[in-house]
């Protein structure tokens, strides 16, 4: 049976792992390669590395870092941050990345998704969406690491991206990110049940019960978290043991 995936996310700034709350107040959380290797050893199913400085400062994701990660990690990993062309992706894959995630550049130029999926296959293209629920109750797409609001609805953009060839959706709720109050169950469920591709839920995981909720109630295919793993609040083996007890299929 296909397992639900647990994915630690490492936000990278200047070569270090960092973590903030609601996308601000960054704290240092260690060396990304060491952390990644530790998570792989502990039973993480995949890793995501996001270069959070890349878009804003117009820098390319650090290819040397990706190469170092690839040498040490024996599970799949995704790299994101500032990717805006086929050449960017080609360079990352040549350095050992398995998938790439696109966000702002894909929104501004949706053709990018089509180009990437044609060139490298849909399985390689993860669309990351940062979304916030506004007072009108709607979920809107945000760009540039959560700094820029758009008028686009989260579901509409996700659907368009899947039609263009995105193979997975990484959905981060800005309302929930860093709060440890649980995942955004409703919007995650909408995407996970209405789109034909896997959905990775992100933002808000604070207890083991929150992971049960997002898998059972929202039918997410994977759940991503950062600070609870970085700051050792929940250990991956404990989390997976708990999920297994709750009859959720996980790789032990």
């Amino acid at each position, binding site marked *: *049976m*296909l*397992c*639900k*995936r647990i994915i630690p996310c490492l936000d990278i700034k200047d070569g270090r792992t960092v973590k903030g709350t609601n996308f601000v107040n960054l704290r240092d959380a260690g060396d990304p390669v060491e952390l990644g290797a530790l998570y*792989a050893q502990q039973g993480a*199913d995949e890793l995501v590395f996001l270069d959070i400085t890349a878009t804003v400062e117009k820098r390319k994701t650090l290819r040397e870092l990706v190469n170092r990660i*690839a*040498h*040490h990690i*024996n*599970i*799949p990993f995704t790299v994101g941050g500032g990717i805006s062309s086929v050449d960017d992706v080609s360079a990352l*894959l*040549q*350095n*050992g990345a*398995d998938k790439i995630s696109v966000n702002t550049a894909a929104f501004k130029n949706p053709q990018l998704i089509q180009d990437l999926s044609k060139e490298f*296959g*849909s*399985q*390689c293209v993860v669309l990351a969406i940062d979304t916030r629920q506004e007072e009108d109750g709607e979920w809107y797409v945000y760009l540039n690491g959560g700094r820029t609001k758009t008028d686009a609805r989260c579901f509409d953009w996700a659907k368009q991206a899947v039609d263009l060839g995105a*193979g*997975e959706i990484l959905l981060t709720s800005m309302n929930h990110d860093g709060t440890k109050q649980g995942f955004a169950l409703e919007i995650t469920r909408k995407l996970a*049940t209405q789109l*034909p*591709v*896997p959905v990775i839920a992100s933002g808000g995981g604070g207890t083991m019960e929150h992971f049960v909720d997002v898998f059972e109630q929202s*039918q997410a*295919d*994977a759940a991503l978290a950062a600070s609870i793993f970085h700051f050792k609040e929940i250990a991956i083996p404990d989390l997976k043991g708990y999920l297994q007890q709750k009859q959720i299929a996980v*790789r*032990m």
Partner: protein
Amino acid sequence: MDLVIIKYNAGNIQSVLYALERIGVNAVVTDDVEQIQSAGKVIFPGVGEASSAMRYLKEHKLDTVIKNLQQPVLGICLGMQLMCAYSEENDTTCLGIFDEHVKKFTPKTGDLKVPQIGWNNIFNLKTKLFAGLPENSYCYFVHGYYAALGEHTIATADYVQPYSCALHKDNFYGVQFHPEKSAKTGELILKNFLSL
């Protein structure tokens, strides 16, 4: 004894190379026919689309070369599918090493997505390729097409229906999952292949 990874237009070649490095083995990545033919063992990896990969292999005369290899050969993911007789992916005639046909996953209900992405258990394990592995070990899969069960099946996985996640005939082995990304389980399978 040289280990060769076949270089062609469907690559996750770097991942395979690094995985081998982690278990202390150096491999040569090449599309040079003589080097492939004289290798001790050959890995035929692949992520991509069947018809364009087959077209590339034919253009570079690699189709005949691969079919006639005598040393142990391990096809991975698309590599395994290309070793089958036929793929529904763009109606492609493949190498025909295994008789099995490759079909598209067609789930009857909406809860299973295509492609299958993630970790699934493998069972009914046969041959030395899986020596030392417990039944229902987990491997990492990414694929929208599958090889049906057949006489060459040496491991089964279940997604939509039971299917061949590994095939074997003579000196040819193929695995649908990615041993290079399947943590310790994958490393053991690669080591087993290298000690065949």
